[in-house]
C-alpha cells in the first residue's frame, strides 16, 4: 500500500497545478451562476429544470472535460518530459502505477466537479434528490472517464485533443443521433444513472440505472487494465 500511496501522491502533485485548478474552478463557478439564474426564473417544474441543467452542463461538459484534463496529464505529462522511466524502472507491479495514477485523477477531479454541481443543483431548485443523484452519477462518471483517459494520455501524444474530439464530436454529436452509437458513449450511461437516481426522464438516458452503474464500474476496471497493459507493452524513452 505504501507504494500505491506514494505513486498516488506523486501523480496528484503532477496534475494538480495551480493553472489547471483555477481554470477548472472557473467552469464550476460559471455553472453555479447559470444555475442561480435558472432558480431565480421560478420554473414551473424546478426539479426537471435543475436536472436538465445538471445533465446538459454538468454531466455533458464538466464531468468529461475536467476528467480529461487531469487524467490525460496523469501519465501523459511523464511521457511528454521523458520522466516515465523513473516509475517504470522499478520492481513495482505496473497495475499499481496505473491504479495510483487513475486514483490521483479521480481525487483531484471529483471535488472540482461534484461540489459546484451539488451547489448548482440546489441553486437551480433541484433539491436534495437531484443533488444526491448528481453526486452519485458525477462521481461514477468521473471515475469511468478518468480510467479511460489515463490510458489515452499514456498512448497518444496529443491526448487532450483526441479526448476533446471524442467528447465533443463523438459523444456530443454522433452518439446523440444514433441509438447504436450511443451505446459506445460513456455519456449515455452517466445520464442514464443520473436520470434513474433523480427520477426524472431525460433524453439520451434510456438505459436502466442498474445496468448503467454496472457498465460505468466495468469501464473503470477496463481503463485501469488497459493502462496496465499499455505500461507493460510500451517502449519507454
Amino acid at each position, binding site marked *: 500500500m*505504501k*507504494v500505491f500511496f*506514494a*505513486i498516488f501522491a*506523486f501523480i496528484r*502533485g*503532477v496534475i494538480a497545478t495551480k493553472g489547471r485548478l483555477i481554470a477548472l474552478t472557473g467552469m464550476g463557478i460559471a455553472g453555479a451562476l447559470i444555475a442561480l439564474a435558472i432558480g431565480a426564473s421560478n420554473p414551473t417544474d424546478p426539479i426537471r429544470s435543475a436536472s436538465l441543467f445538471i445533465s446538459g452542463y454538468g454531466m455533458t461538459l464538466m464531468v468529461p472535460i475536467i476528467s480529461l484534463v487531469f487524467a490525460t496529464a496523469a501519465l501523459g505529462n511523464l511521457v511528454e*518530459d*521523458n*520522466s516515465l*522511466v*523513473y*516509475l*517504470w*524502472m*522499478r*520492481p*513495482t*507491479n*505496473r497495475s499499481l502505477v496505473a491504479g495510483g495514477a487513475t486514483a490521483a485523477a479521480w481525487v483531484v477531479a471529483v471535488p472540482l466537479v461534484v461540489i459546484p454541481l451539488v451547489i448548482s443543483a440546489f441553486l437551480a431548485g433541484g433539491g436534495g434528490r437531484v443533488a444526491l443523484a448528481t453526486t452519485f452519477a458525477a462521481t461514477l462518471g468521473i471515475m469511468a472517464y478518468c480510467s479511460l483517459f489515463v490510458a489515452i494520455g499514456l498512448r497518444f501524444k496529443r491526448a487532450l485533443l483526441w479526448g476533446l474530439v471524442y467528447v465533443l464530436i463523438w459523444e456530443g454529436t454522433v452518439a446523440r443521433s444514433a441509438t447504436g452509437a450511443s451505446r459506445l458513449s460513456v455519456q449515455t450511461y452517466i445520464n442514464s444513472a443520473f436520470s434513474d437516481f433523480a427520477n426524472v426522464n431525460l433524453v439520451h438516458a434510456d438505459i436502466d440505472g442498474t445496468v448503467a452503474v454496472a457498465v460505468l464500474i466495468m469501464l473503470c476496471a477496463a481503463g485501469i487494465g488497459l493502462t496496465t497493459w499499455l505500461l507493460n507493452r510500451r*517502449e*519507454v*524513452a
Partner: protein
Amino acid sequence: MSLISFSEVSKFFGDLVAVSEVTFTIDAGVTALLGPNGAGKSTILRMMCGLTPPSSGEVQLLGRDPRHSTEVMRDIGLVPQQDGLFEHQSAFEFVRLAAILHHLPNPEAAAREALARVELSSDDTRPVSTFSKGMRQRVKIAQALVHHPPIIILDEPLTGLDPRQRLAMVHLFNSLGQAGYCVVVSSHVLDEVERFGSRILVIAEGRLAAIGDFHAIRDLMDDRPHRLRIVTNKPRELGGVLLGAGQAMSVRIEGPEELLVDTNDIINFRTNIARAALQVEARVEELASLDDNLESVFRYLVER
C-alpha cells in the same frame, strides 16, 4: 553466468538498423560503451534495461529477460540520458520516491545516503526544476544508487558536470567497480572513457566494432593509417626525408607550403618529425591530423 549478456541482438526502427547482431557479455567492474553520437549506444542501454525490446536476438540480465520481468529492476540502477526529472519535487523527495518504489525498509535514510554519495544535501527543499544541469545529473545518479543495485547503467553520465564533479563521479564509478558492482557507462568522448581505465565496447554504426581493454583499443586506434597536413617552408625536402626514413607511406605536395603525409605509425611519426625537419633545416609551422576525430576512428574500426 555473466551479469549481462547480449546474443545476436538487433534493433530496427522501420528501415533503420540501429543495432546490428551485437553479441557480448559484461561482468563486474566498469565497462565503457564508447561510440560517436547516433552509433546505437543508447539503444543498447535501453534494451539492456528492458525499456525497448530487441527486434531479434536475446538480452539477459542475471539470466532474466529485463523486458518481461519487473523483479529484475531490483538489480538495475539506470541513469538515463534525457534531462527530464520530476520537476516539482525536491532532490530528497525524488530519491525517496525511488527508494519507496524499490520497497526499501527505510526510504528516508536510503535517500539521504544516496544524495550524500553524490555530494547533494537532503535538506535542500528547492524543486529540482531550479537545479543546474550538473546538480540534476547528480540527482539522477543518486536515484540509481539508492537501492544498491548490482548493475548500474549510466548513459552519458558526465554530461553537464564541471571538471571537479567529473573527477568525483569517475572516482565513484571506479570505486563501485572495484567493490564488485557491474557499472556500464556510455560515452562518446574518448578521453572521458580513458579515465575509467576500463574494459571497452566500441560501438559504431550499430555494430560492435571492437571489444577489450582500453589500452588495447587505444593501440588499435593509434596503429591505423593517419593522414596529416604539414605547413612548412620546405615541403618537397621534408617529404623526401620522411619517405626515405620510412616515416611516411606516401607524401603529396599540396602547395608551396603544404604537405600531406600518410603514415601508419602515428606515435613514431610524431616523435621523429622534428628530427626530419632539422635534417633539411625546414621550419614546421603546423602539424594537423586530418582524421583524428572519433568518427574517423570508429569508421576505421568498422571497416577494418
